[in-house]
């Protein structure tokens, strides 16, 4: 379809103010928080499911690539329009439609910022559990598409475990509802398939999320280690002991220093790494459990274990953790995050390999990650303006993901495959696995117009 005609048709659907097509606007939708870039042909900001349905029907009729976007915080190029086409920016669809405490659900539009919902429900003593580090800016639509994790997912599970139903606009513009306020709906679990599909099966226009009562009591510990290995061994030992805290996060010296530049947390800057360990739930028995954890830390040569004495101290500890990615900009301007995940017992071994790979390619690597889940996030720091450095970074990243896969792990725990890890899917999938995924994709999108070029490598 001629671009001017496309714009005219979109103008009719959403009004000209909500169709962006200047060179500048297209450039500004060519990126997300990853390293990839590609320009769309047009950007559209719908305000309702109806509008989204019409946009989708148009894309379907004209076979134009289309993809959804929230705050564009994706770390693997998931929201980069590699094949051009229409970017649907959900910033205007940001309403909390209903909070139904009696049924323990919140119904929201995809553009709602995760933390905004969480702040709202906390007023009544409820929580929506998934807490990706980007929750201050990331949207529910993005969280759903990527099946986002977060520190507390160790105990409470990832986004998928907290989505009860979705409204999805299918490839031809049909609007369907999956799941609902009632659980255990008969039929295939389409909700589970859409969550984590990286926006490749449809556009999510509404989500019904599960709310839970906020835990009665929370205890946050900061365990300080003089050797990374001790920290990693502690993580494995805690899990092996059969203790599942609410969080079990690790942060190394490099990252602590970077964070401390912007947020004065008071991390011990001479330590090799820290663990942020949080327990929550009923207070009864929590002290015993905390003592057990401290004992395990001691057996692994911990230097000191500090207890956050109040909510304010706890908040600042978390602010530091959740701001860690962005703050590595204090060290080098760009970073690549490898989201490889391993069985928790393999953590010390793989972490060592990561450090070796950093040395091999002469690249600074910071580690801040969901240790309890075995979900590594080595942040390779560099300056993307330096071509040579950039190419070394990509090699190092592939090698790290290979190490994770070889340890019985996977190439992405929570950030998705996107376009950045397409070739690395070969580390974990064989052709049959991929073909099955392609069949699923075809069931939803036979013309391959919805976020094409993502998640599943093209048939070789």
């Amino acid at each position, binding site marked *: 379809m001629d671009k001017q005609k496309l714009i005219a048709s979109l103008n009719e659907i959403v009004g000209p103010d909500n169709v*962006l097509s200047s060179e*500048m606007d297209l*450039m500004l939708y060519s*990126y997300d928080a990853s390293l990839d870039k590609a320009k769309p042909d047009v950007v559209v900001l719908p305000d309702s499911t109806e509008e989204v349905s019409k946009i989708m029907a148009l894309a379907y009729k004209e076979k134009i690539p289309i993809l959804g976007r929230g705050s564009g915080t994706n770390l693997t190029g998931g929201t980069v329009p590699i094949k051009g086409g229409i970017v649907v920016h959900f910033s205007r669809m940001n309403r909390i439609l209903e909070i139904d405490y009696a049924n323990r659900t919140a119904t929201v539009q995809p553009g709602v910022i995760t933390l905004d919902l969480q702040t709202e429900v906390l007023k009544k003593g409820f929580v929506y559990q998934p807490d990706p580090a*980007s929750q*201050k*800016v990331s949207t529910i639509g993005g969280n759903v598409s990527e099946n986002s994790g977060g520190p507390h997912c160790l105990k409470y599970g990832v986004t998928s475990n907290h989505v009860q139903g979705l409204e999805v606009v299918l490839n031809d513009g049909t609007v369907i509802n999956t799941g609902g306020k009632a659980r255990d709906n008969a039929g295939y679990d389409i909700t589970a398939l859409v969550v984590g599909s990286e926006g490749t099966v449809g556009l999510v226009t509404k989500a019904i999320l599960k709310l839970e009562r906020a835990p009665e009591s929370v205890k946050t510990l900061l365990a300080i280690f003089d050797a990374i290995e001790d920290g990693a061994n502690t993580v494995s030992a805690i899990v092996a002991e059969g203790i599942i805290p609410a969080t079990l996060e690790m942060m190394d010296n490099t990252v602590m220093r970077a964070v401390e530049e912007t947020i004065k947390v008071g991390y011990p800057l001479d330590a090799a790494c820290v663990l942020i360990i949080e327990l929550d739930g009923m207070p009864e028995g929590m002290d015993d459990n905390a003592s057990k954890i401290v004992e395990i830390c001691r057996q692994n040569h911990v230097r000191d274990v500090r207890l956050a004495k109040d909510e304010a101290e706890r908040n600042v500890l978390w602010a530091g953790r959740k*701001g860690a990615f*962005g703050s590595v900009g204090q060290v080098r301007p760009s970073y690549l995050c490898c989201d490889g995940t391993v069985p928790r017992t393999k953590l010390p071994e793989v972490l060592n390999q990561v450090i070796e790979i950093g040395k091999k390619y002469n690249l600074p690597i910071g580690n801040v990650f969901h240790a309890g889940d075995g979900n590594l996030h080595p942040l390779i720091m560099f300056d993307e303006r330096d071509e040579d450095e950039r190419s070394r970074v990509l090699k190092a990243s592939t090698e790290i993901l290979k190490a994770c896969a070889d340890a019985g792990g996977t190439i992405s725990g929570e950030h998705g495959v996107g376009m950045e890890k397409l070739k690395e899917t070969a580390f974990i999938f064989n052709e049959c696995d991929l073909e099955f995924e392609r069949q699923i994709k075809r069931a939803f999108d036979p013309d391959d117009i919805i976020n094409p070029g993502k998640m599943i490598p093209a048939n070789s």
Partner: protein
Amino acid sequence: MNIVQLKKLSYDEVAKCNKCGFCLPSCPTYLVKKAESYSARGRNAITRFAIENKLELNEDTERAIFTCLGCGACTAVCLSSVQTKDLIFQNRECQVDAGFYPKVAKRLVKILEESHNISDEDQEDRAEWQELIKELPEDAFEKETADVVFFVGCVASFFPMVQKIPANMAKIMQSAGVDFTILGGEEWCCGFPLIGAGMPEKLAAMKDHNLKKVAKVGAKTIVFTCPSCYHTWHHFYKSDAKLMHASQLILELIKDKKIEFNKNIKGVATYHDPCDLGRNTGVYEEPREIIKAIPGLEFVELPMNRKFSVCCGGGGNVEMTDPDLSAQVAQTKLASIKAVGADTVLTACQQCVRTMETRAKRSKTDLVVKDLTQLVIEAME
């Protein structure tokens, strides 16, 4: 400034933006417009693409770059501490050179050069606000020498809605026995609007003039009711005098028992941190201490306060370049104030008072907007 110069000046800083997007929800114009070009991340990307010759500066980039409120909220939440406000102002210089900048900015410069104030008024009328003070002899506050110079600023001098601010400040100082003077017709615009307009080089003339006049008075202290004048003096002037915002001076006077509060003030008030006073110059606590010293008044904080305060919509010359946007930002601000249950919003800036009061009136929002000086006078009477 051309692209080559911009690259030299800004490239390393703008490259620190790793596009994490944490600034999006803190950018008031993004929250209103909901498109990337109105966000801090988007504006930094424009600068970067321009430097890398991937994007030409044109009317579109002009719109994006000149609608930044310069409030600095993005940097407050930026984990890489990218100095976006500075980058924007540098980019504006480039836009000006390329000829893509708002007509109002062009007119503003002309007016400043000719009239030395932003309102294109006669400089002789600068002290007109004194008429608000009953039975005051003409030019009562214009002395040859004094301990303190009260730098009034253009907005408070010429906009009737906020002329009570200098009047109240003068009354406070007078009643506390402060030896002060104003510069009257010899006070020139501090030059702040020129930075926002992308023409900082034109600030020099203003600066030289003002410094000379203050030196002549021999004052050891300069006091400002306008946070932007205060901020400009702080960051762009080199003066030996002690610079104080009105709130700082008033708090000293309270502590020294030079002024006393006799009247109970009823109601629930919140405080809006002006961007240039709080985040951009670091004055957070003095205004709060004054408010807490007022008998009877109930004080509630806004959820986003101090370093994270949300702009009223009056910053960055946007009121001139895109009044609708400015009004929408103000409307959002009013909503957040009403949401904490306040009937009054206090602030310490004539521009914030103007923006919020105008918006409250137009939208028929039941809210009292007061400068701190007014609150202090009310409680003193």
